[in-house]
C-alpha cells in the first residue's frame, strides 16, 4: 500500500493505493496523525486505487475520524468503489464520514 499526501490550502488529500490489510493499515494511521500534527484539520482520503480494506483499516478510519472530530476537524472519504465501498456502506461507517464521488466534492464540502 502507498500513501501520497497532497496539501490543498488548509486541507490535505491522502491518495491511498493498493490493499489496506492488517499489515499495511498500520502505515495509514501515523500518516494521518502526522498531517494532523502539521495543523491540517480536514483530511480527504482518496480510496480510488484501494482494492481491499480489512477490519484494521476500518479501525484506523474510525480512530482518525474521532480524533479530528474532537479537534473540530473532519475526515472525508472519496472515490471508494467495489468491495471497499460495499464494506463502508454495510458497516455504516458512512454515518461518521460520508462517501464522496470525487476529490473535488470532498474538498468543497463545508
Amino acid at each position: 500500500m502507498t500513501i501520497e499526501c497532497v496539501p490543498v490550502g488548509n486541507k490535505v488529500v491522502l491518495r491511498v493505493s493498493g490493499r489496506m490489510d492488517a499489515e499495511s493499515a498500520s502505515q495509514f494511521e501515523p500518516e494521518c496523525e502526522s498531517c494532523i500534527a502539521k495543523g491540517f484539520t480536514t483530511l480527504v482520503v482518496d480510496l480510488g486505487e484501494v482494492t481491499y480494506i480489512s477490519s484494521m483499516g476500518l479501525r484506523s478510519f474510525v480512530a482518525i475520524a474521532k480524533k479530528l472530530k474532537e479537534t473540530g476537524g473532519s475526515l472525508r472519504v472519496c472515490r471508494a468503489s467495489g468491495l471497499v465501498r460495499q464494506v463502508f456502506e454495510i458497516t455504516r461507517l458512512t454515518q461518521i464520514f460520508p462517501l464522496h464521488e470525487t476529490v473535488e466534492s470532498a474538498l468543497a464540502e463545508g
Partner: protein
Amino acid sequence: MIHSSIQSGDVLRVALALLPVLLFLAALRALDSYKLVSLRTVLTSLASGAAAAAVCFGFNTFMFQIFPGAQDQYARIGAPVVEECAKAAFWIFLIATARVAFMADSAICGFAVGAGFALVENISYLHLLVDRGIGTWILRGPGTAVMHGGVAALGATISVYLLESRQWRGVRLFAPGLLAAIVLHSLFNQSLQYPMLSLLGAVVGVPLVLGVVFYLSERSLRRWLGGKMDRDIEILNMIGSARFQQTRVGAYLMSLQGAFPPELRGDMLSLLQLTIELSVRAKGALLIREAGLEVAPDPEVESIFAELKYLQKSIGPTGMLAIRPLLSQTPRDLWELHRLANGVR
C-alpha cells in the same frame, strides 16, 4: 415518633448496604468500553435477582422451621446451594439464549442479579439486626451485597469463558460456574463470624477479579471482532468475484447442483450473502462503539431480516440443512443477530 425514627434508621441501613453495590454496578457498566449491556437488561437482571431472593426467603424460612436444630449448618451449606441456583436461573437464561456472549457482559448481568438479590435480602434482615449498631450493619450489609453480586458475576463469567474457549454446552457448560459460586458463597457464610475479614474479602477480592475479567473480555472481543470481520469481508469479496466457483464456498454450492434447482441455489447464495452482510453490519456498529462514538439507528435492518425470513422459507428445511456448513452459527454469531433483530444498537 418512635416508629418514624426506626423507619429513617432502616432507610439509612439499607442505603448503607446497597448504595456502594449499586455504585459499583454503575461503575462496571461505565468501564465496559463497548457498552453492550442495555440499561433494560441490567434492570431486568436486578428484578430477577430480587424475585430469586423472595423465593429463597420463603424456602429458607420453611427449611429453618423443618430443621430447627440445624439452622447454622443450613446457613453455611444449604442456603448457598439454594440461593446460587435461584440466582443462576437468570444468568443461565441470558447465556443459553445468546443474549450475552462476552465475559464482561456476563459479569455485569451476574453482578446485577446478585445486587437485586441483596436488596431484598438486606431488607428482610432489617428486623433481625434492628438492635445492632450501624457499624455491624456496615460490615454485614455491603459485604454480603458485594459477595452476592461477585459470586454470581464469577459464575456467569466462567460459563461464558467455557463457551468461548471449549465450546461446551448444556449442564457441562453451566455446572462449573454454578459450583464456584456455591463454594465461594459457602466460604463467605462460614467467615461471617469474622465480619471485618468477610467484608475485606468481598470488597477487595471482587473488584480485583472483575478487573481481570474485563481486561480479558475486551482483549477477546477485539480479537474476535477483527478476525471474524476480515473473514466476512473475504467471503463478500469472493462472492462478488469471477473466481467464486473455485472457492470452497462456491465449490460447495456447485456440489448441490443435482439436489436443488438453480433458483433455490440462487436463494442459498443470497441467504449466505445477506447473513454475512448482517454480520459485517453488526461489527461496524461495534467498531464505532469501540471508539466511544454514538451509533445511529439502522433503518434498513428490519427489511433485511424480512428478506432473510423470506429466503429461509423459500429454501425450506432440507435446503437450510444443506447450507448449514456455510453459515456461521457460533453463540457470538447468534448474539449479534439477536441484537440486530431486536434493534439494539
